[in-house]
């Protein structure tokens, strides 16, 4: 576990495309620049979608990993 300061925890488990990215887009606006959102999801599509969303929006994907059915990831607001 790296030393990131988590500002917000987001539970996206059970939600399917496009809701995880929509919830992330809404949540990122609620934290300050530099702060990190920590989220968990179950939709396997998230493994591709969250990195893509980070590339298109310019936010930093701190980490993403899948363990069993749970995908955990962290995104830092950049702008």
């Amino acid at each position, binding site marked *: 576990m790296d030393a990131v300061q988590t500002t917000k925890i987001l539970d996206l488990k*059970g*939600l*399917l*495309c*496009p809701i995880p*990215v*929509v919830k992330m*887009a*809404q949540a990122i606006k609620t934290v300050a620049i530099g702060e990190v959102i920590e989220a968990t999801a179950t939709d396997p599509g998230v493994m591709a979608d969250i990195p893509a*969303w980070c590339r298109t929006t310019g936010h930093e994907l701190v980490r993403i990993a899948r363990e069993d059915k749970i995908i955990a990831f962290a995104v830092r607001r950049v702008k």
Partner: protein
Amino acid sequence: MAVQTAPAPVTAPEVATANKLTMIVFSGEMDRLVAAFNIATGAAASGMDVTMFFTFWGLQALKKHTRTGRSLMGRMLGWFLHDIDGVGPSKMNFGGAGRWMFKQMMNVKQVTPVAELRSLAAELGVRMLACQMSMDVMEIRREDLIDEVGDVAGVAAMLEVAMQSKATLFI
């Protein structure tokens, strides 16, 4: 009758190619509308400025639960037009059984219903335009459409946004 002024330009003309997506929604089937609103909400969440232009069967996605039509043929057509909750899938509808089946299956998997995706799209700032010509032909009035409809417009208004968009989709 009140004097009607022209709607404000959809976008600032000085913007060349911005981070925009234009979608022409021609189809009115449940599955195609799920795809359309899924892409629209996803694009809006990814920071794109999204405009959806609804034409012909696509107008059902914006229709209230009302009967439309003035003339005999217009009213006959009105019997076959649905709202977003009443449209069936493009394949295997089986006179409404398919619609029921798909709704059940989507519900079990917790897929967001298409009407909710539409609300979400509006919430995310997706601009929804209705095609004037299709409305005239199909005898659908502005008051038959939901309040989230931004403007009633024509091909030139749609093309103006399309020319400034990174991608344009026809569904």
